[in-house]
C-alpha cells in the first residue's frame, strides 16, 4: 500500500486512510488531512526528514514516520 512517505517531491495524491490512533491521528485530521483530500509533497528537509506538504491551501511539515501512517492513492 502506498503512503504519503512514498511520494516524490511535487507529486499530488488523494488521502485514502489514516492509520494510528489517539492524539496523533486526531491532530492529523484536525489539520485537514482527511479522506479524499488532495495533498502535494512540496519539499524534503535538508537532512532528509521531515517533509513539507501542501494541503487545503497551506503548508504542513511532518515526519516521515508519521507520513507513513497516511495511505494515499
Amino acid at each position, binding site marked *: 500500500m502506498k503512503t504519503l512517505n512514498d511520494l516524490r517531491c511535487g507529486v499530488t495524491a488523494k488521502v485514502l486512510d*489514516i492509520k494510528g490512533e*489517539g*492524539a*496523533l*491521528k*486526531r*491532530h*492529523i*485530521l*484536525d*489539520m*485537514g488531512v*482527511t*479522506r*479524499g*483530500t488532495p495533498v502535494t509533497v512540496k*519539499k*524534503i*528537509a*535538508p*537532512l*532528509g*526528514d*521531515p517533509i*513539507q506538504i501542501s494541503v*487545503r*491551501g*497551506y*503548508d*504542513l*511539515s*511532518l*515526519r516521515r514516520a*508519521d507520513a507513513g501512517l497516511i495511505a494515499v492513492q
Partner: protein
Amino acid sequence: MKKINIALAGNPNSGKTTVFNALTGGNQYVGNWAGVTVEKKSGKLRSDKNVTVTDLPGIYALSPYSPEEVVAGSFLLGEMADEKPDVIINVIDSSNIERNLYLTTQLADTGIPVIALLNMIDISQKRGDKIDPKILSAELGLPVFEASALRGKGLTDAVNAAKNAAAAKASPGISGHRIVNFSPEIEDAITRISKIIKNHVTSDKPVRFYALSLFEKDSLTADKLGLNETERAKIESIVKETEILLNDDSESIISSQRYDRVSAILTSCYEKGGKKSATDVIDNVVTNRFLALPIFAVIMFLVYYISVTTIGTIATNWVNDTLFTEIIPPAVTNGLESAGASAWLVSLIVDGIIGGVGAILGFLPQMAVLFLLLSLLEDCGYMSRIAFILDRLFRKFGLSGKSFIPFLVSTGCGVPGIMASKPIEDEKQRRITIMTTTFIPCSAKLPIIALIAGAVFGNSAWIAFSAYLAGILSIIVSGLILKSTKALKTKDMPFIMELPAYHVPRAANILNHVWIQLRAFIIKAGTIIFLASAAVWFLSSFGVENGRFGMVDADFSFLADFGKIFAPIFIPLGFGQWQFAVSSLTGLVAKENVVSTLAVLFGTSESGLGTHVNVLFSAAHVYAPAAAYSFLLFNLLCAPCFAAIAAVNREMGSAKWTMITLLYQTGFAYIVSLAVFQIWSAAAAIF
C-alpha cells in the same frame, strides 16, 4: 451597565494577538491558565471598560489533546472558575480560510454566539482571493466582518456586533445554532447519546457539544460528566454500531464531515487567487536543500553577535560593572554611613540587596535584545523553519530544532537562554531543553575555567575547549536519559507543524511581547533572587566567633560551618576541602563568585589563587589535575545561579519541576565529576 466577557479564539498565526492588542491597548493582564504553563492574556476593551476580552491560546481545533486545546475548551464551556464568555470573536486568517473555518464549526457547537472576523483581508485580497462575506455569513449563520487588525480596520463593527449578541442572548440558555449537520446516521447517534447524558448536563451547557465529544471517544468528557459504567458502555456500543454502519472510525467521520461542510460553503462564496505567494519564493531559498544550513548559520551568527558579543553584553557589562559596582554602591554606602547607619545595615543593603538585585537587572539589557530578535524570528515565520531544518538532528535527544537557540544563547548567559525555550511548543521537549541548557558554560563560568587551566594545566587552551565539549556531551547524554523517563517520554510525540506564511513583523506586537517578558522576569525573578541573596549574605557575613554571635570574617561565618558539614560529600570527587564546598555554594548567587570566594577563603589575591590551588591539590592527591578538573566539571554542570533558577521556575511554571531540574543537574554533575576523578586517578596510577 452589564459586564460582558468576550473570548478571542482562532488558529495560531491568525493575527489574534494583533487583534487583542488593538482592542485592549496597554490594559493587559498576563498570567497562566490554572494548572498549566499555557499563557493567559486578558484585558479591558479600550472603548468600554465594562467589556473584558480574554485571548485564548491559538488552537487548530477543540480536541482534547494539547494543553492549549483543553484549556480553551474548558473555558468556553464554562468549566473553569473564570466567568463563562458571553460571546466569541473568532479571528480567521482570510488567506488560509479553509482550515480556519474548521475551528469555527466547532466553536458554534459550544452554544456561545460566535462573531466571525475575517482578519488579514488585505493580504488575501493582494493575493487575488475573492471572498463574498454576505454569502459566507448566510451559509455560516453568523455575522461576518472583514478586517485588517494591523491597519486598524473593521474591528469596531465586530465588537459592536459582539456586544449586541451578548445583550440579546436569552438569559442563561444556550444558542442551538450549528454550522454542520452531520449525516443522518451520526445525527441519530448524537441524539441517542444526548439522551443518555442529559441528566449530567446543566441547562447552561451544550449537550450537543458533549455528545459529539463522546462520539469521538473523548474519555476526558466522560470523566467530567461523571458518567457511570453502564452509561459509558451504552455510548460505546452506539459508537461501534455507527462505525460499522459507515465503515470508518468515529473521529475520521466527524472531522471529514466538518471539512466537507467547510469546502461546500467555500464553493459558494470563495475563489482562490492564482498568484504565487511570496512565501513559496522565500522558502525556495531559505529551506533549500543546499542553502538552508548556511543561511541558518548566518542568521544564528547574527543573533549571537548582536545579543551576546556586542550590544547585549556591552549594555549588561555597563549595568553590572559600572552602574552596580562603581556608581550605585559607593553612593549608597556614603549616604548610609553619613546618616550614621550601622555596619551590618550598610552591608545588608549594599552587598546583599543591591548586589543581588543588581545581578538581575544586569541581565535585562541582554534579555531585551535577545527577546527582540527572537520575537522577530518568530513573528516573521522563520522560527518554524528552524524546527523544520533541524528536527532530524535534535529529536534523537528528545529536543526540538528550536532548542538550538537556547543552547547558543546560553554560551553567553543561561538566563536568557532558558527563556529562549519559550517558542518550543512541545512541553516535554521544552522541559528537556530547560533542564540541559545551562550545561553549556556561560560567560560567568569562564573565570573558573581560567583558574583551573592556569593552576594545573599550564593555561592550556584545551581546557576551555573541553569545557564546551563537556557541556555539549552532557546535553546529548541527558537528552537520551531524560527522554527515556516516564514523565518526559517523547517517543510518541507527533511533530506535525504548520509552516506559516512569512509576513513582515509588527513592531507594536514585538515591543509589547518584549516588555511583557521583561516585566514578568523582573517581578518573579526579583522576589526569588532578592530573598536568596539576602540569605546568602546573612550566612556569609554572620557567625559565631569566640562564642559570640555577630558579623565575622568569612572563615568563621555560618556559611563556612555549612561548608565544613558538606565538604566530606566531595571527598570522593577529589575536592574535600571546605573552601571548595563554600565557593560552590556562593556560586549560586553568581558563578563569578566561585573564584572570588576561593580567593577570600584562602586569603590570597585572585591572581595568586592558581598557585595556591595547585599546591593544595598536589598536597592532597598524587595526581592533582584529576581533582582540579573534577572541581571544574562539578561547577560547570551543577545547579545554575539564582537568576537562572528563577528563569527555570518561570519557564517550568511549577516548583516541582524546578526542584527536579536542580536535583537532576546537581546529581548529574556529581556523578560525572566522581567518574572523571576516580577513573582519571586510577588510570594515572597505572600508567
